[in-house]
């Protein structure tokens, strides 16, 4: 009955990956910036939690909340230092992408210089595990699923019901029109970077707690998941990206059923190439009327 265990692990990873994808897609879908540096936002999010939880010795929940604040600030700082000055100079998307890559490399070098490239342990403590029909379920996995379902429902309400959420969507649809209606695109962009980066911090931390360790490369893996998710789920479509992320998580665990774990990445990216070949618009039609 190993398959049941794989399915359950796939669900856990899938929910984490869907949050990865949402955090990237919120920024990409509304600002149209291909935010490669988001990879390091993931990494820094996990390292902030590591600093507060392991080095300072705080409890895990306040550590995560503080990490969210710091990571949101980091995201806004990247917008302030890198993207805004470039956009003021009317830089095109390629220039923004190259600068974003440069930011990614620089931040990764800085993290590696401070913490070295070695693996660090970040675990939520050894929780009790229950067995349901021969599937072993740990406490932390249940917390992960619960937290992310909570966050996702909150996001849906936020984007559908609140004024701030509607403004953000309006900016994504048509920034000039949004400006005509008296919104400040500049301010909204900062809100978007704060939300996307805060979510990235939670997602990266939860994944670290599930796996037990962090290193400076975890952000790249998360970022690549985002790319596959937005291709599979349809570009600029946040629920599509979330579903795409979930599918990637499921596939990467289910593939272990048939092939060795080291081929996971090859399988996931082959799925991406296959989607590009046969269904380039993504598996779900881009539902513009829904967020």
């Amino acid at each position: 009955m190993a398959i049941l265990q794989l399915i359950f692990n796939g669900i856990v990873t899938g929910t984490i990956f869907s949050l990865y994808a949402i955090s990237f897609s919120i920024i990409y879908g509304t600002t149209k910036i291909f935010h490669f540096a988001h990879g390091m936002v993931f990494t820094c999010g996990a390292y902030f939690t590591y600093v507060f939880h392991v080095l300072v010795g705080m409890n895990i929940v306040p550590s995560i909340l503080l990490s969210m604040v710091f990571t949101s600030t980091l995201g806004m700082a990247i917008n302030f230092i890198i993207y805004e000055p470039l956009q003021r100079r009317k830089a095109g998307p390629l220039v923004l992408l190259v600068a974003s890559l440069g930011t990614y490399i620089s931040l990764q070098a800085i993290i590696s210089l401070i913490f070295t490239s070695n693996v660090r342990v970040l675990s939520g403590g050894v929780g009790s595990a229950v067995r349901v029909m021969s599937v072993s379920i740990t406490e932390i996995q249940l917390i992960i699923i619960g937290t992310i379902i909570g966050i996702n429902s909150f996001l849906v309400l936020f984007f559908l019901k609140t004024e701030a959420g509607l403004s953000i969507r309006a900016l994504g649809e048509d920034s000039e029109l949004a400006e005509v209606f008296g919104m400040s695109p500049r301010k909204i962009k900062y809100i978007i970077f704060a939300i996307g980066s805060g979510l990235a911090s939670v997602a990266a931390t939860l994944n670290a707690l599930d796996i037990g360790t962090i290193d400076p490369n975890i952000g790249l893996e998360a970022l690549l998941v985002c790319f596959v998710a937005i291709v599979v789920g349809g570009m600029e479509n946040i629920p599509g990206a979330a579903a795409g992320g979930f599918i990637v998580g499921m596939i990467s665990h289910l593939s272990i059923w048939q092939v060795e774990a080291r081929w996971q990445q090859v399988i996931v990216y082959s799925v991406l190439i296959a989607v590009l070949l046969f269904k380039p618009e993504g598996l779900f039609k881009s539902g513009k009327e829904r967020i």
Partner: protein
Amino acid sequence: MDYLLYMVTIMGIWVMLAISMNLVLGYAGLFSLCQAAFFGVGAYTSAIMYLNFGTNLFVSAILGAFISALIGVIIAIPSLRLKGDYFFIATLALQIIVFNLFLNWEPLTKGPLGIYGVLRPNIFGTRLNTNISYFVFTLFFVVLCYSLSSRVCNASFGMTLKAIREDEIAAEAVGKHILKFKVLIFVFSAIWASLAGTLYVYFIGAVDPFAFELHESIFILSIAIVGGMGNLRGSVLGAIVLIAIPELLKFAAMPESIAHQLRNLIYGVCLILFMMFRPQGLIGEYRID
């Protein structure tokens, strides 16, 4: 002196890689992040063919180039049909897949240990054992790469590419088959990257997967960007500058791991500063957009 010859040979190989990036990004305006994958395909094909079948350098080079070109076509056609960032994502996916194949396909690639024992080639009966002879050999290919690329870029093919880069719809309106041009330049660049890989493995004598990671693609991108887009001399200059500067770090005695990260920090900051203040690079003709 021998060390200097070693360094200029390395520079020559990276000039070829930078030119291959420049062809795609500088002339066609396409953002590829898989030049290191093609570089690796060339290197691994040559190493595997040499050790298993004893084939000579030219046969391996052609085979590697053929495989790279084939992969290039498979990636380029579907992703270039689509607008926006699909091509970038597809090249990134290819980069990850190829690296993982090098790392995990152990019967063929020996996994993380890599392949050792590739001897210097025999050219017209002389073995290129000295660094000076191998440098001359490499220089021949660099000049070949440079002159062929500049011919292609200045011929009507290159002009059409520039036209597509500046205004795709106008180019299509005058009857240019845009997809065909883009795929061709991508394949052309893949072939040069692969040849650079062949030269590299015969020079070093060994390959391991970590030489062809994503970071290597980003490094090649940095060389092309710093040197300048749409100008092949820029790629030569970029390779000299970006390989020489980190070498100087070696004289400041510091542990290899710190030096490595400092190097990455330099490349990263270079990319940001050039985008801010000089997006056309040191001597580039084209400002990427």
